[in-house]
Structures are given as C-alpha cells and as structure tokens.
C-alpha cells in the first residue's frame, strides 16, 4: 500500500521540466526500492495479512464475526486486564518519573546526580524481558532477599500482609523498573524547557512555589506528560517476555493470550487470533500516534 503510494509520488515528482537531467532523475526512487521491498515483505505484508484475516472466516469470506467475538467475555476480560495493568504501570511510571525529574533536574541537586540517573536510566529502560523478572523474583519473590530480610530482621511478613509479586500489583511494580527510567528520560527535555524567566516572573508577582506549579509549570508540561503517559501505556501494553517469565502462561494479558494461541491454537480459531492481533496494533498505534501529536504540540514551548 505504502509502497505504491511512494513509488507513484516519485514518478509524478520526477518528470518535472528538468530536461537535461530528466533521464537521471527518473531513476532516483530506485535507490530506496530495497528498503521498501524489505519493509513490505517482512513488516507491512505480514501485518496486512493479519488485518485482512481478521475480517475473514475460515473459508476466506468477508465477515465481522471475528471482530465481534472480541466482545466475548474472556476476550473482554483479557483486554480489560491488559489495559488496567498498562494504565496502572504507566501512571506509576509517569508520576514517579516526573517527581524524580523534578527533584533531580530542578531541585537544586548537584549535576552529577542528574548524570548518574540519566546514565542509569538509559540502561534500566532497556533492561526488560526475562532477566528483569528474574531479578524481581530474587528480590521480592517468596524466598527473595528483601522478603526474607524483612521477615528475619524486622518481623514483617510481606506475603502475609497481602503483598504478592505474582499478582496484578506485583507485575506493575516490575514494569515500574523500566517505566520510571523511560519517563525520566523523555520528560527531561521538557523540564529543561521550563524557562527560568517564568519562575522569576511568577516569583516577582508573588506566587508561591505551589502556585507556580499549579498555574505555570504543570499546564506547560501537561501535553508532554500526557504524551509520555501514552508512550508508557503502549510500552506496557506490548510487553510480553517480562510478564511471561514472571507469571507463566496463565496470566491472561492480551500478548500472552495471543502467544498461547500461536503456540497451541487455544482459541480454536486462527481468524480470532488475527482479530486479537489487530486489536493490539490498533491500541498501540493510537497511543503512539497521540504521543507524537502531543509531542509536536509540546515542542512549541521549547522554541
């Protein structure tokens, strides 16, 4: 689809009256053909195949049945679980990242603190997947070091008091380990963009610290915060390896349901799997697109 559009636009762009080099210009679009071919074969094609399959039945006829079946109770439960988990972990990540950014960047701490956090965040935001789950099991699992220390030294029994790493809240706590650094990294430019003059002007006009944040800081940051929140949401929504290593195959978030479906066809209907994939791509696509729009909007303060 995109291939045709781009190729035709190159065609229409080429034969403009640049007569002397006309022959040469004609072939310029050829240089990007390998890229488009690769992308079409191994990225757009496979996804399109699933999207088309989502609107077909097993015999290849057009139908909305698969999409409608996404409304069945266990599908709704699965999407609802994933969305709630992603919302919670994105909210935790966004708030914690904002607080950390505010403290480290604007809080009057020495610059090396910020550098240390930036470096660490670059690593931690990429430290997802199976090893992250292992680290938290060794820390807060039933026999994890912190669990045992709290029990033996302070007499606090985490698991008796209702905490469980292998639960909804536990998973979002694990996600926080990569969400918080990601938020810190992407909110930092916006915090740098809060101009000193605004703060001084507010100060001269007699504003208190909290008034400054309520009336100037947060409103200016709001599009950025919302955008980052959506990015974190999408980040959590697509996470599979971490939650799979932590919870096994029984925790019905959408990626795991799809994973199980591909492995063993547990839904007994591949076309429902296509619809599930379509649902994931739509949710990821919408939140990422909104993130980009909000980022564009926020950038006008940084000029």
């Amino acid at each position: 689809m995109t291939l045709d559009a781009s190729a035709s636009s190159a065609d229409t762009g080429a034969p403009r009256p640049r007569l002397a080099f006309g022959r040469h210009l004609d072939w310029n679009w050829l240089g990007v053909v390998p890229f488009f071919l690769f992308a079409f074969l191994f990225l757009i094609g496979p996804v399109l195949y699933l999207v088309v399959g989502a609107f077909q039945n097993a015999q290849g006829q057009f139908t909305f049945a698969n999409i409608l079946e996404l409304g069945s109770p266990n599908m709704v439960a699965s999407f609802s679980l994933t969305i709630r988990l992603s919302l919670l972990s994105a909210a935790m990540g966004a708030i914690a990242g904002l607080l950390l950014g505010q403290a480290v960047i604007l809080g009057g701490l020495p610059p090396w603190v910020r550098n240390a956090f930036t470096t660490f965040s670059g690593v931690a935001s990429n430290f997802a997947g199976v090893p992250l789950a292992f680290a938290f099991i060794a820390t807060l699992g039933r026999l994890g070091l912190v669990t045992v220390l709290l029990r033996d030294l302070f007499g606090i029994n985490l698991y008796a008091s209702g905490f469980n790493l292998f639960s909804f809240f536990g998973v979002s706590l694990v996600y926080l380990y990569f969400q918080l650094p990601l938020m810190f990294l992407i909110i930092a430019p916006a915090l740098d963009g809060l101009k000193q003059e605004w703060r001084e002007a507010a100060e001269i006009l007699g504003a208190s610290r909290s008034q400054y944040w309520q009336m100037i800081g947060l409103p200016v940051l709001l599009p950025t915060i919302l955008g980052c929140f959506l990015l974190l949401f999408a980040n959590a929504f697509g996470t599979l390896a971490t939650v799979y290593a932590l919870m096994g195959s029984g925790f019905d978030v959408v990626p795991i349901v799809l994973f199980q479906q591909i492995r063993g066809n547990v839904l007994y209907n591949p076309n429902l799997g296509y619809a599930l994939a379509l649902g994931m791509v739509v949710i990821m696509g919408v939140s990422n697109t909104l993130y980009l729009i909000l980022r564009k909007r926020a950038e006008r303060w940084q000029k």
Partner: protein
Amino acid sequence: MKKRFPLVAILTALFAASFFIVPLIATFYFSLKMVRGELGFAAYASVFGSAAFLQTISYSTVASLIAIVIGAVIIVPTAYWVRLKVPHLRPVVEFISLLPLIVPPVVLVFGYIRLFGSSSWLPLTTTATGTDILLVIGYVVLSMPYMFRAVDNGMAAIDIATLTEAAESLGASRLRTIALVIFPNVRAAIISGAFLTFSISLGEFVLASLLNRPAFGPYLVQLGQDRAYEPAALAIMAFGFTWACMALMQLFATRKPGQRWLPRLTKPAAQRTTP
C-alpha cells in the same frame, strides 16, 4: 521561593536510587548463595559449565550479528539516498522505520508464521535454515527504529552532499561512494545502533520461542522454571551486558562530531588525490 536546602529533592532521589539498586544488590547476593551456608560463584560456574547455555548464547550471538550486518546494509544506503536524492520520501521512510514500535513482536511473528507457513509462496518456516533466516529478519525489523535513527543522526553530522560530489568528481561509482566514503564516515553511528540492536536481540524471547529456535531467550525462560540460583546469576550478567552495550552505544554515538570527522574528512581525500 527562596533557595532552601533541597531536602525533598534529596529524599526523592534517594528513594528512586534505592528502588533501582536494591533489586540489583538483592539479585547479586541471591546469586551467590547457591551453596548452602557460604557465599560463592557456584551459580555462575554452573551457568558457564552448561552446554545448553553455550549453545544458545552462541546461536543468539551469531543471529544478532547477522541481523546487525543486514540492518546496516539496508538502512545506510536508504538513509543516504533519502537525504541526498529523494528527500520528499523522508516522511514515508521515517514512518516505516518507526512502525516496529507500534507492531508488537508477537504480532509480527504471528504474521511471519502465517505468511511464510507451509502453504505459502515462500515457505520459510518449513526448514530450519528458513526459520533461522526469518528470525534474523525479525531482529532486523525490530531494530530498524534504532538503527535508522542512529544512522540518520550520523549522516546529519557529516556533509554527505559534498562528500558525494567529491567522490563523484574523482570518478567513484555510486556503490563505491557508499561503500568507501559514506559507510566509513557513519561507522560510529552504525556501531552505536549495532550495540542497541545487540542488547535487544541477544535475550529476545518472543520471536525465538514462537519460531522454535534454540536461542538464548527461550533457554532463559526454561531455566527460570527449573532452577533458583542460576537465573539470578544470569540476571546480573544480563544487566552488566546491557550496561556495557549502552555505554558503548553512547561512546560511539557521541564520538563523531568532535573527534572523528574532521581528520577523517581530510585524510581519505588526501589519499585519493595521490594516484
């Protein structure tokens, strides 16, 4: 709003730092306790002594390295061509290169299995080699956003139009220009993107597991189900590995503007003029 002692800021930073560091310390300590009653590196020895570990990690290393090479061969000429000749295609290329961030790996591999399955015109999944190829291609796709950004940033820092004109006026062909002038000039950027690719694909689980490849990610998950201390040791090593990759990525990403391209720009040109 006078300057005051940043107590709240210090407490916040300390709290965040402990959230980051405590799991690492705990995991490290846990990994040392394999032998009851003493601390030691038995878990690490057990990991390195395992044949499955060595097999899977070498498989994944090779797959990641091939993915990096293919990625560079596709992305570098494309980014170069887009900047030089077809800037009006830039939004499309940029959009496509960002698509893998929207398409989750599990969806991508689902598409692969269906589109390149046994009844397909290109039945890659029916042979082991075909599936290996598909896995590598999947890693190329997953790393495309990072690779493209790294290479494109690298190209922004050098004057590719002038370099190309210079190469052309000295009689270099297109391919020669890309291979001998552009590639070396964005080498640091490619390596920077390569380390990120490496850190993504070495322990990758979803593609490898669903394509049923003997890669490191599925081995990790299996180990997590069977053992207690080895996973902790591997988590610590994985963190160290990610750290090393990110540090090297940073090093190469920030290297070019200051140190690299001034001497590089003059030297090859001087060599060229001699024959």
